[in-house]
C-alpha cells in the first residue's frame, strides 16, 4: 500500500467528516435493523438485534480514535521506510544457501583426510524488471554470487530472462530467452535442483579427479539459452502441467563462467525431452526421456619444455655373445616447443527420469569425445588424437512428505510449519575417462539420507564407496552436511 498517498487523503477525509460533524447540530440518524433475505431480524450470539452498520454514524470519539490510529501507523511506516527498511528500484527476492560440511576420506593423507569445510555460500537476488499484468510475459532477472570453499565470491546465475509467450494459462506453450551467465541445458544432473539431486556430491563424471572429466557440463558459462515447450498435457483438477515435448538450444563462449572467449568458435548445447501426455493421477506422470548434445571447439594449450626421453632399444648379441644384451640409444632427447591445438569436444547424453513423489528415479548416460595431444616419435612433434570416454549414473530416492507438494506448501497456516521428513537415496555411478587406453575407470556407490527439519534446512549424510581400477577398494568417503539458508 502506498501510505504516502493514501494516508494523507484518509486523514483529510476523516478530518472533514469530523469537522462537519462538529459544526452541524448532531441529529440521530434512522438506524435500520439488519435483516436477512427472508426479512427476519438478525441477532448476535446473545440475541441482541444487530443494526445495519452502514447506517450508523460514528461518534466523535470513534473518528478521533481512528485518526489517532492512522497517524500512529503513518508515523511508524514513515520512520521505518526512512531509517530501517532496505529499498530497491524493482521487486526483489533474496535467497541464500550455506553448506557446512564434515568430510572424512579413508586412506588419504594425513593419514586419513578429515576436515570441516564451507563448500558453498551463495546469495541470490531475483525479481521482475517488468511485470505484464495481462499476458504475464514478464521480464525477469537473476543475480547470484557463490563462494566455494571460502574463495572470493564470483557471479553465478547472472542473467535476464524474457517470457516470449503468455504464461497466463498453464495450457499455453512456453518460450523463454535468457541472456547472461547461466547453466548449460545438458542432461538431468548437471542442471538439477535440490529436489532432483539428493546426494551431497555430484556424480563421478562431474567431479572425478581424472585427467578428463566432464565437470564443465554442470558449470556455468556466458551466453544465450532459448527454452521452449509445447503440447502441454494439462489437468486442471490438480493445476498440473506436463509438456509432451520440451527443448532448449544454447550458445556460450565455451571458455568458462566468468571469462572472455579465447577463440572464434562458440560452444553449442541442445536438449530435447519427451514426456507422455498423462493426467496427474496417472502412474506415468513424471516420466521423461531426454537427449542432449554439446559441442565446443577450443584451443588446447600444450605447455612447452616437455622433455621427450631418448629412445633406447635392447639388442641381443649373436654368436659367442648370444647370451649378452646391449642397450643402444637411437635418438637424442628433445625438448618440445609450446604449441596449441584446435581441439573439439563433443558430448552426447541420454537420460531417463521418473520424478513422481514418493518414488523418484534418474538415470543418464554420457558419451564424450575430445581431441587430445600426444607426442609422435616418428614426426617428433605433437599431434592430436580423439579421446573417447563414457560415464553413467543412476539414482533412486524417496520423497515422503508434504513439503514435496507445491500446493500443499501454500496452505493457510498460523505457525511456522514444516514437517520432519526423511529422504533416503542410493546412487551408482561410474566413469571410464578413456576407453581406448588403459586409463583407470572409477565407480562409486553412494547411499545416504537427507533429513528435513525446517523449511530451508536439512541435514545430509552420505557414505560413498569408491573403487578405481588397479587400486585397493578402500577409498570410502563419509560426508555430513547441514544445508540451510533463507
Amino acid at each position: 500500500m502506498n501510505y504516502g498517498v493514501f494516508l494523507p487523503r484518509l486523514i483529510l477525509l476523516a478530518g472533514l467528516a469530523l469537522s462537519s460533524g462538529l459544526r452541524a447540530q448532531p441529529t440521530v440518524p434512522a438506524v435500520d435493523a439488519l435483516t436477512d433475505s427472508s426479512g427476519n431480524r438478525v441477532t448476535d450470539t446473545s440475541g441482541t438485534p444487530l443494526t445495519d452498520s452502514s447506517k450508523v454514524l460514528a461518534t466523535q470519539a470513534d473518528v478521533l480514535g481512528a485518526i489517532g490510529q492512522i497517524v500512529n501507523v503513518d508515523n511508524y511506516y514513515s520512520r521505518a521506510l526512512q531509517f530501517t527498511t532496505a529499498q530497491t528500484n524493482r521487486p526483489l527476492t533474496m535467497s541464500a544457501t550455506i553448506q557446512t560440511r564434515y568430510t572424512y576420506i579413508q586412506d588419504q593423507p594425513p593419514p586419513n583426510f578429515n576436515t570441516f569445510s564451507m563448500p558453498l555460500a551463495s546469495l541470490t537476488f531475483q525479481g521482475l524488471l517488468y511485470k505484464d499484468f495481462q499476458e504475464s510475459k514478464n521480464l525477469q532477472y537473476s543475480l547470484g554470487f557463490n563462494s566455494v570453499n571460502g574463495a572470493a565470491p564470483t557471479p553465478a546465475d547472472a542473467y535476464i530472462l524474457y517470457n516470449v509467450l503468455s504464461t497466463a494459462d498453464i495450457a499455453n506453450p512456453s518460450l523463454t530467452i535468457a541472456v547472461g551467465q547461466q547453466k548449460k541445458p545438458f542432461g538431468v544432473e548437471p542442471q538439477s535442483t535440490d529436489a532432483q539431486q539428493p546426494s551431497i556430491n555430484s556424480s563421478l563424471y562431474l567431479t572425478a579427479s581424472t585427467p578428463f572429466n566432464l565437470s564443465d557440463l554442470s558449470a556455468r558459462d556466458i551466453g544465450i539459452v532459448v527454452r521452449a515447450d509445447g503440447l502441454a498435457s494439462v489437468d486442471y483438477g490438480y493445476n498440473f502441467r506436463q509438456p509432451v515435448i520440451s527443448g532448449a538450444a544454447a550458445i556460450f563462449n565455451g571458455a568458462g563462467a566468468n571469462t572472455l572467449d579465447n577463440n572464434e568458435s562458440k560452444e553449442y548445447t541442445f536438449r530435447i525431452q519427451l514426456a507422455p501426455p498423462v493426467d496427474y493421477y496417472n502412474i506415468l506422470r513424471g516420466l521423461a526421456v531426454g537427449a542432449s548434445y554439446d559441442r565446443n571447439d577450443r584451443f588446447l594449450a600444450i605447455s612447452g619444455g616437455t622433455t621427450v626421453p631418448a629412445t633406447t632399444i635392447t639388442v641381443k648379441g649373436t654368436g659367442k655373445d648370444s647370451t649378452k644384451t646391449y642397450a643402444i640409444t637411437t635418438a637424442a632427447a628433445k625438448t618440445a616447443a609450446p604449441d596449441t591445438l584446435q581441439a573439439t569436444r563433443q558430448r552426447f547424453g541420454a537420460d531417463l527420469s521418473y520424478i513422481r513423489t514418493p518414488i523418484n528415479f534418474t538415470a543418464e548416460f554420457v558419451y564424450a569425445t575430445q581431441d587430445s595431444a600426444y607426442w609422435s616419435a616418428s614426426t617428433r612433434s605433437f599431434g592430436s588424437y580423439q579421446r573417447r570416454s563414457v560415464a553413467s549414473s543412476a539414482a533412486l530416492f524417496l520423497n515422503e512428505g508434504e513439503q514435496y507438494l507445491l500446493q500443499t506448501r501454500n496452505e493457510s497456516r498460523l505457525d511456522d510449519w514444516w514437517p520432519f521428513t526423511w529422504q533416503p537415496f542410493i546412487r551408482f555411478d561410474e566413469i571410464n575417462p578413456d576407453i581406448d587406453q588403459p586409463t583407470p575407470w572409477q565407480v562409486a556407490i553412494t547411499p545416504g539420507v537427507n533429513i528435513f527439519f525446517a523449511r530451508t534446512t536439512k541435514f545430509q549424510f552420505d557414505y560413498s564407496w569408491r573403487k578405481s581400477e588397479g587400486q585397493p577398494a578402500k577409498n570410502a568417503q563419509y560426508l555430513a552436511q547441514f544445508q540451510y539458508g533463507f
Partner: protein
Amino acid sequence: MNSRIHRVLIAAAFLAIAVHAADVPKVIRLGWVGNKNNLASTGGIVGYAQETQAWEKEFAKDGIRIEWNFFTGTGPAINEAVANGEIDIASSGDLPSSSGRSNGLPTRVIVGGGADGGKRYILVAINSTIRRPADLKGKRVTFQKGTYAHLAWDRYARDVLHIDGEKDVKIYSLIGGDQDVALASGSVDAIYGGGLDDVDRGIARILDSVTVDRYPTVGLNAGSTYATQKFIDKYPDIVYRWVKVYLQIADKIDRNDQKPLLRRLGTKDGTSLKNVIAAEPPDSRYGYLPIFDDYYRLSVEKAIKDEVSLKLIRHPYPVADWWDRRFYDKAFAELGLAEKWKDVLAERAAKLETLGK
C-alpha cells in the same frame, strides 16, 4: 516359572494394546478450501465444527488428533494432497472433486450435499464499458481454472450468453486475491464468482448475479465431501463417528439460533457481515443441508455430464460407484433426520423437475 508367565502376560497385554491402537488413527487429516486472506478457517457446517471443536471432543477419548488443512489453491490443491496420501477426509466443489475421481483418485463420497452454489456474482470494473452480460463476449474473464467456478462459467457462457466459454472469451486463471488486483489494474474485464467486498471498496460493480433459482442449470455446485478408500477400509468406525458429528452439527445449525455464530464465522476471512448475509440463499436449509437424495445425485450426474461435454474431464463414471452411503444412512437414521428434515426433503423432491428428471 511365575516370572515367565508374568512376562507372557505382559507381552500379551502390550500386544492387545497395540492391536487396539491399530483400530484408530493417531490423527484425522482434514482438507478444506482456504480463503483469499489466507486464514486457517472456513464457514458453514465444517467452520462451526472447527469453532466448537466438535470433532476434537468426539475423538479426544481415543487420543485421536484432528489436523486442519486449508488450501489456498482450493480444490486442485486438495486433489494433489489427497493423491499423495496427505489427507484422509476432504471436501471441494463439483469440478475438482469429480475430476479427481474421473482420473482414478480413490475417494468415496461419505456425506451428501446441498448442491446449491449459493449466490455468486459476475463483477466488472467500476468504470467498465460492459453494460450487460452479452457484452462479455470477446472480453477477458478471470476465475480459477479447475474449481467449481470453471464449470459454472462454462455453463453460464453456454446457457446464458450462448457462447463457448473457453473460446469466445479470453480466460485468465487466477486465485481469489489476484483476481481483485487484476480487475482493479484493468488487466481483466470481469471476475466470475467475485465477492461483494470488491463492490464495497469501489473497485467493482455487479454485472450479474447467479443463483440456482435465477439460472437453474448454472447455479448448482454439487460439491462433495469424501474420504479416501484407504482410510475407510482401515477405520470404518472412525468414519462413521465423523459423519455422525457432521450430521449432528448440520441439524443443530438447522435451527436459527445458530445463525449468529455461522455469520460471525463467515466474517473471519474479512468479508463484512452485511455481505455474508447478502450471500446467503433465501432458504439455507434447502441449500446447505447435507442430504443424499435424488436431487443431489442428479446434480452430480449433471455436473459429470457437463464436464465431459465441455471437455473439462475425460472419463465419465457412475455416481453410485463413487458413493459410500453406509455411514451417512446409519447416522441419518439414528439421529431421526428423516423426520426433522422432511419438509426440506419434500421441497428438494419437488424441485427435481427443474433438473430435468
